């Protein structure tokens, strides 16, 4: 395995006594390898996740609107979604390789599949949560079905949509680490690299893992704030 775009350099063996002794955590290694290992891996991880969640969201939203209009489509799509979610990521990545190779495309198809099956049920549930009397009132005010959808049902579904996005983003950040089994990108790569060494290198494992968790928690927090910003009515009187 070769590091992203760089030469194959053992990550420890030289360096401080902390690094050569594989102590619990070596700040000097983190500082020294931020530029060539951790920083790029973090950037790649953000990219992998951002593409997967945006594409997955567009697909899930379109499918949810379709399912919302044709209720009969919902049950079959939900069952397929539940089944896809059981697919182990490590196996799904491998099974796509014969079709799309060891590429970003392979990784994104798998990641998009997971975001899709997380987002779809949440968006559908959100769209269905609009109380019938609210829909009636909208119709009574002369709104067309299309206007009812985009001015009443979708806004009322926003909390559920943001809730789904939170799960999708956090899960995708975790799952994207497994992409390193087919593509040397993202925060999973330093971890897989470090456990494959004759002695697992602790600092690299911990720093990359903590970065992934921190990224997930920061994104989650950001989505909570975004959710509050787009649903000001939920705070009335609160």
């Amino acid at each position, binding site marked *: 395995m070769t590091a992203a775009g760089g030469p194959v350099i053992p990550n420890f063996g030289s360096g401080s006594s902390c690094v050569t002794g594989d102590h619990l955590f070596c700040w000097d290694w983190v500082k020294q390898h931020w530029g060539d290992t951790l920083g790029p891996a973090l950037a790649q991880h953000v990219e992998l996740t951002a593409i997967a969640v945006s594409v997955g969201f567009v697909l899930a939203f379109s499918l949810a609107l379709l399912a919302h209009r044709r209720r009969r489509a919902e049950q079959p799509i939900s069952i397929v979604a539940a089944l896809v979610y059981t697919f182990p*990521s490590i196996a799904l990545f*491998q099974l796509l390789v014969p079709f799309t190779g060891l590429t970003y495309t392979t990784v994104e198809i798998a990641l998009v599949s997971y975001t899709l099956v997380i987002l779809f049920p949440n968006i559908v549930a959100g769209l269905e949560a609009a109380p019938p009397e609210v829909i009636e009132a909208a119709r009574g005010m002369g709104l067309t079905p299309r206007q009812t959808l985009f001015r009443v049902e979708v806004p009322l579904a926003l909390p559920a949509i943001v809730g789904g996005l939170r799960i999708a983003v956090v899960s995708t950040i975790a799952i994207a680490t497994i992409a390193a089994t087919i593509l040397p990108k993202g925060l999973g790569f330093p971890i897989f690299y470090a456990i494959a060494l004759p002695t697992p290198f602790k600092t690299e494992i911990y720093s990359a893992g903590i970065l992934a968790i921190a990224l997930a928690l920061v994104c989650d927090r950001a989505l909570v704030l975004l959710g509050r910003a787009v649903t000001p009515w939920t705070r009335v009187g609160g």
Partner: protein
Amino acid sequence: MIYDTANTHTFVQALRFIADNPGLLATKALEQMELSGAAIGLALLVALPLGIVLGHLHRGSGVAIGASLFGRSLPSIFLIAVFLTVLGLGFENNMVALAVLALGPILTNAYLGVEGVDEDAVEAARGMGLSRSGILTRIELPLALPLIYIGIRVAAVTVVATAPIAAYAGGGGLGDIIANQASYRLSGVLGASICVMALSAGVWALLLALQRATTPKGVRVARVQNPAGELGKEGL
């Protein structure tokens, strides 16, 4: 990693690999199920009583609900690597890592299930003279059962689906084949991947059927729920 030239034909070879190696695949699958079973058992021992007690006392909602969100943010390979550095190579490190992954769904759903039982039902039971433990075992637990099952199912599928990754830390199982393309070629990797998928989908379907068969009619959840959406009720 060196890959064979890959094309759709390799799928035929993957199926041939499965047909040619039933013994190997069965042994590896069994290994993987042993590891998964031990991990789920360990997680159940810890998370189920904790979730039920917290729900019964209506306390610790932050911990119980935060557990599933935090658990979701933990990359499986990170947990496996961490316990590899702490416990060394073998069975225990992977069992503990996978058990940690299973804690969140079990704890959160057990908590939400017991905590969400209708107060009126509990009051009525108290009025009829049921003891504290009577209320828990005869009112709260039966009513919480559907959610508890959902938590166990999500946890079990998560563990079975993640177990192949444990092969990177000496966990054995079908992941051994997936992680070792040098010996098994792409056909073996794909064959094992197909088996891994079938295994986790099978566990999911089995637990769903089991849940349907053992849940009393009166407390059934009406819709088929998506394991991904099942914990999405936390809202904002």
